[in-house]
């Protein structure tokens, strides 16, 4: 098991290398030149070249890339071109808000989707099944900025119960978490349902019932644990995505997360900041998926046995 985890950590290196390569070169291809944008209108060619050197943007593309990678290995993501501060500092100033929203939304999604998916599966083809699938489709297909606006209108403007934006205190996270969680719940409900449907016909549940296990325990203990693998997978990728920020929701609720940070970095051609953010997302996403794989081992002993080989 430990060996497996170490192996997975080492496997992150090529992934990060590939991502940094693609991102760095794509960013370079993007039109617009930050030096030209930032230089005063009356700057001479020589002054602009000096600025470029100061910002570390001189030299050919491969040269710059290798310089960047050398610093990256030291944990240095460079200086933000537009804010003149280390990228890593800016990122971690904004990251706690994203972390809060990501976990808040996934908790909302779990509270909705797991009981709903199980109820849909245990009442297969009944009205309950139909209703929960329609709800899940709604959650999936509703644009989240629109749901966010509706919630603001209802709970902030009409009822005045919750703040419409910002990130101070527990109350302010409720609406963004529900908005993001509703979208995630759609997918999770469908996965929970289909995974449970597969398990619910298994012989070992009949064995459990024949032992005198109550129906509730048959479903929530014996069946759910067997159905968890696909649920954890989707749960992990949903969480991983949420750690990359949710631009639409951060915008609607003026939530100070990393999603908006990245978009504004791209808009202002702040390449070091944008690249740094994307590399951080990659790290968090691969870490989340590693946690998912470790969770598999705890859920299914057969997978654990494979890991220890």
């Amino acid at each position, binding site marked *: 098991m430990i060996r497996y985890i170490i192996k997975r950590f080492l496997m992150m290196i090529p992934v990060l290398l590939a991502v940094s390569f693609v991102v760095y070169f794509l960013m370079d291809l993007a039109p617009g030149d930050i030096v030209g944008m930032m230089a005063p209108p009356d700057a001479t060619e020589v002054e602009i070249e000096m600025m470029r050197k100061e910002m570390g943007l001189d030299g050919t593309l491969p040269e710059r890339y290798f310089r960047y990678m050398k610093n990256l290995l030291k944990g240095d993501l460079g200086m933000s071109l537009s804010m003149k501060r280390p990228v890593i500092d800016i990122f971690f100033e904004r990251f706690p808000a994203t972390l809060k929203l990501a976990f808040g939304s996934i908790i909302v999604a779990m509270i909705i989707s797991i009981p709903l998916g199980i109820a849909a599966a245990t009442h297969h083809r009944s009205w309950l099944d139909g209703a929960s699938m329609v709800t899940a489709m709604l959650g999936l297909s509703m644009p989240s900025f629109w749901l966010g606006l509706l919630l603001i209108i209802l709970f902030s403007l009409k009822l005045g119960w919750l703040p419409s934006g910002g990130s101070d205190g527990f109350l302010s996270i409720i609406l963004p978490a529900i908005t993001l969680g509703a979208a995630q719940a759609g997918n999770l409900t469908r996965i929970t349902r289909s995974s449970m449907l597969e398990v619910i016909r298994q*012989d070992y549940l009949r064995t459990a019932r024949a032992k005198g296990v109550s129906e509730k325990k048959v479903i929530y203990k014996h069946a759910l644990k067997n159905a968890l693998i696909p649920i954890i997978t989707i749960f992990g990728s949903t969480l991983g995505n949420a750690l990359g920020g949710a631009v639409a929701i951060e915008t609607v609720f003026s939530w100070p997360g990393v999603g908006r940070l990245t978009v504004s970095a791209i808009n202002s051609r702040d390449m070091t900041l944008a690249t740094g953010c994307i590399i951080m997302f990659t790290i968090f996403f691969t870490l989340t998926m590693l946690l998912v794989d470790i969770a598999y081992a705890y859920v299914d*002993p057969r997978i654990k046995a494979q890991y220890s080989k």
Partner: protein
Amino acid sequence: MKKDLVLNVKNLVVRYETEDGIVKAVNGLNLEIERGKAIGLVGETGAGKTTTALSLLRLIPEPPGVEECGLMELDGLDMLSLTPKELEKVRGKDISMIFQDPMTALNPVFTVGDQIAESIHLHEDVSYTEAQRRAIDMLELVGIPGERASDYPHQFSGGMKQRVVIAIALACRPKLLIADEPTTALDVTIQAQVLELMKNLRKKYQTSLIMITHDLGIVAEICDEVAVMYAGNIVEKGTLEDVFNRTKHPYTEGLFNSIPNIYDRKAMLTPIKGLMPDPTNLPEGCPFHPRCPYMDEDCKKPQTDRAISDTHFVRCSAYDRPGFHINRKEK
């Protein structure tokens, strides 16, 4: 003399109401089992054996299943009046079941020890640690080293898994054990071991047994009585000697005729002609009449059980005809 019955079932009807029609799986079955006795429930695939077993545990999935029954008493306890909560207390404690396929009967994500202990913990007033200790005893009783209690089902072979299933079923010393083709999915060599184990444990615990099988050899080995099922009903029931040596029903005769003769390996098998009737569309009267060599018009009328002796009955109207007998000779 009044019989000491562990199970008394009268007029059991189970049907599955599906979109393609009503499947009549069990049609007015009566079954009595005396304490400590083992009865073999024999019949072709689709005769309703497993459905009968599940309905005794009141585990027929509803819908699509519908279970109706005139009387179902388990050791004097009226099973039909129990609430779902009360049924949970009876299942696994007074009546338990061994399933056909051990490969799928165990939950892959729990240790076998926990799966045995769960049953003990549910039904007996012991702590979970004590239940686990007793689970280890049960494992040893079925011939598996106790330290394997913390292993998962995928670490066991088919025969070992079936031993675990037996340990679960017997953990609370049930009054009635239903074994649904417990050896069908196993290798022949393992079959003998498992049967031997069941035979010994049954003796030890004084458990009554319903052995569902299509293997007449197993019945002869293990059972005291035989009930032959066809299309959802028992067509002949008696002691081993009654049914094996003084066969009365034409269907039972057909079953014996289709056993290969080990003394004459060149002899042709004589299978029963035709197929099991479609359970959504059973023939009138005796369901066997379209395949029966002795059929006449009376067979299309409703059938009743006819006592041959105190222990033996047959459900066949041909015995109304004077001097009727089947071709198979009495021994």
